[in-house]
Structures are given as C-alpha cells and as structure tokens.
C-alpha cells in the first residue's frame, strides 16, 4: 500500500466516533426523533381535554400524565435504536470488530437518549407548568425526568436488542420492556408529585438514581448478549 499503515484505535475513541456518527445521522433526519417528542406533547395535552379542567385536579394528575406519556414515548422511540443497524449489517460489523460490544452499544444508547430522551426532559417542566404545577417545582420535575429517562433508554436498549430479529417486534418490545420500566414509572411519578407539592423528594430520587446506575452497568452487557443472539 502506498500510504503508511494505519494504526489501531482505542475503544474509547471508537465509541466516541460511533456516537458522533449516530448524532450526525440523527440530525440529518430530525423527523425520526421529533416524533416521540410530538407524541409526548399530544398525550399530555389530551389529558386536560378529557378530564375536569379545574387546575387543582390537573395538578394532582400531572405527575401520572407526565410519566405515562414519557414512558410510552420512550417505547415508541426504541424501535429506532438498533433496527436499521441490524438490517444493514452494521451490528454484524460491530460484533466482529474486535472492540468491546457492550461499550459500543452504550455509546449508541447514550446518543439515542440525547436525541429522544433529552427533549422529553426539557419539555417535561413546560408540560408540568401547563398542567398547573408551580414554577418552584420545575427543578424537581426536571431532575426526576433526567434520571428516569436515562434509565428508560438503557432498559429499553435490552428489549430493542432482543427483538432485533423479529419483523414486527413492536408489541413484543413493549411487553418485554414495560415490566422492567414500571419501577421507573412509580418512583419517577412519586418524585414528581412530591416536587409539585413542594415536599422533599430525596427518597424516590435515590431509588430512581439506583435504578439508573444499575441499568447503566448491566443493560449494555445484556444488550450485547442479546445482539449476538439476534445475529445468529
């Protein structure tokens, strides 16, 4: 070869490059990741229309509406995570790249969260205020969604990897992910309602944080194993 031999790449840089690629791809087709955000807005605006629009009632209902919408919207987004990479052979290339697959999948999941989870985190306080939450509760609502949505993306990655080989994996994906996501829903909604009531929300936040840390450590390993099985 005319050019000098290219040197190897560290796993850290490989993960960074993969994240860059996904981010660039995501920004070139905004429709894909805006869809879950629009869904989130639509569901949360439908709640006041369907119930008693009295502000005190709405405020009681806000945490539930917010978190159910966030959970469903993150489920909707999960299909985007590995589907295309599975179909076009990219995951195959990653699996035989000699790089640690859990690490690469973690990088992909982080970008997925940036594109589909972070918009929800930013939109959440807005929606909560619209549903009658006081302005002082905004930091609390924001924090709960920040931790909770990252846990949802990580847990969802395992489900997305498991249903990779199925043509119509959507329903199965929901069935697989929902039981694991329910604790996030419970503690997230609890933390949010405490934030809206202006009470200390440390207890559910600790549990939410524990779930997020646990899924950050275990989910990439499980997702990598699931991807390898799906590629068989």
């Amino acid at each position, binding site marked *: *070869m*005319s*050019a000098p*031999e*290219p*040197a*190897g*790449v560290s796993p850290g840089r*490989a993960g960074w*490059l*993969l994240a*860059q*690629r996904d981010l*660039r*791809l995501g920004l*070139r*087709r905004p429709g894909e990741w805006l869809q879950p955000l629009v869904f989130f807005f639509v569901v949360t605006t439908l709640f006041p229309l369907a119930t008693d629009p009295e502000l005190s009632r709405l405020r009681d209902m806000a945490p539930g509406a917010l978190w159910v919408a966030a959970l469903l919207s993150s489920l909707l987004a999960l299909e985007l995570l590995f589907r295309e990479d599975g*179909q*076009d*052979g*990219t995951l*195959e*290339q*990653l*699996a*035989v*790249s*000699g*790089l*640690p697959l859990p690490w*690469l999948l973690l990088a992909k999941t982080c970008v997925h969260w940036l594109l589909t989870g972070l918009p929800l985190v930013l939109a959440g306080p807005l929606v909560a205020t619209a549903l009658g939450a006081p302005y002082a509760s905004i930091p609390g609502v924001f924090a709960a969604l920040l931790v909770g949505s990252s846990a949802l993306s990580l847990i969802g990655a395992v489900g997305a990897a498991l249903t990779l080989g199925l043509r119509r994996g959507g329903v199965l994906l929901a069935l697989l992910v929902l039981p694991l996501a329910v604790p996030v829903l419970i503690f997230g909604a609890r933390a949010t309602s405490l934030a809206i009531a202006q009470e200390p929300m440390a207890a559910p936040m600790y549990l939410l944080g524990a779930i997020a840390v646990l899924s950050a450590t275990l989910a990439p390993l499980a997702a990598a194993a699931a991807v390898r099985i799906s*590629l*068989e």
Partner: protein
Amino acid sequence: MKLLVGDNLQLWRGELHVLRGISLAVGAGSCLQVTGINGAGKSSLLRVLAGLLPLEQGSVSWRGTDTRRDPYAFHSELAWLGHGTALKGDLSARENLHYSAGLRRELTPAHIDGALARVGFAHAEQRLARQMSAGQQRRVALARVLLLDCALWLLDEPTSNLDRSGQAMFGQLLDAHLQNDGLAVVATHQPLPVSAQRLQTLELT
C-alpha cells in the same frame, strides 16, 4: 503454516443439518473459494468462521488458538463483508468509511482517498450512499475491507451487483492481498482470477 483451521464443523439450523463435518485449512497467501448451490450453507460457513454463528461441534482456530477462547484477538485481524453493506444511506462514501473503518483504524483522508481510488470510486465520494447504485455500494464496502488492513478476509458474495470492470477490480484487490501474505475465504460463484497455487476450492453440497 495454516493460520485458519476449521476442524469437523457441524451446524444445524432447526431440523436442517447445514454443515456436516466440514474441515478446512487456509495458509498465508492463499484463498479458499467456497462454492455450492443456493442454500448449501456458504453463508452459514462464513458466519461460523467469523464467530457470528455458534457451532454445535468442531472448532475454528486462528494462529493455533481456538477463536472462541480469544475472539477479540481473532476479530482484530478479521475484515468481514456479509450480505449487508453496512453503509448508512444519509452519509457519503467518505463519511461512511470514516465512521466504520475508522472505528478500528486511525485513518487520514489520504487513506480513504487511496482506498476509494483502488475500488474505482474516486469521483463520487461526496454522494450519499442512498443515491448510489447497489454496485457502487459494494465498491464502497470493499473499500472498507481494504482500509481495515486485516490479515484475514471473510467475504460473502463480494462481487454481487458488480459490473465486469468491478469484478476485475475485485480480482486485482484479492490478488494484491494474497501477494501480501493475506488470507481470504470467499463465497462466490464467479471464477476468481487468482493463480492456481494460491487457490483452494471447497464445494458444499
């Protein structure tokens, strides 16, 4: 010295016994061409060799070590090209290579230009992959194989969708790789323009 050795490979897919005790050995500078009718298990054999499909029985070893014992060492010397080209439709050829081969090798634009020129794709590297024809996508995928700069190539139907000049180009690339003491296992029906001493064939039935 045989670097890649497959010993008594057995594989079932459901009820179907796909690989029935296949044995093979490929040394440095030689190429194994896998032929056989559709459904004979060519792709399965290549996926088994790459470690994408688990074996029921038998073993694949690379440089004397079972590939299941040290898959990372094996995969770091493996360039794989399957049915999917692993190209992203919304990225150009150059970007695709930067983000795929670049995960494994530190690449400069000169490396990518060189590889694209060798596969005969120097003019259109700014075009998005989804605007390319299937044959052009194959060429870019072959450029990735070149950029990975690996000792072992496992290629599944590398010349599908390639025109006549593309097939000649692939023959030259393969020949240069073998001259450099590389190894290749290629599943294809096309005759490979490689000298007879370097070429082994394995027909699956």
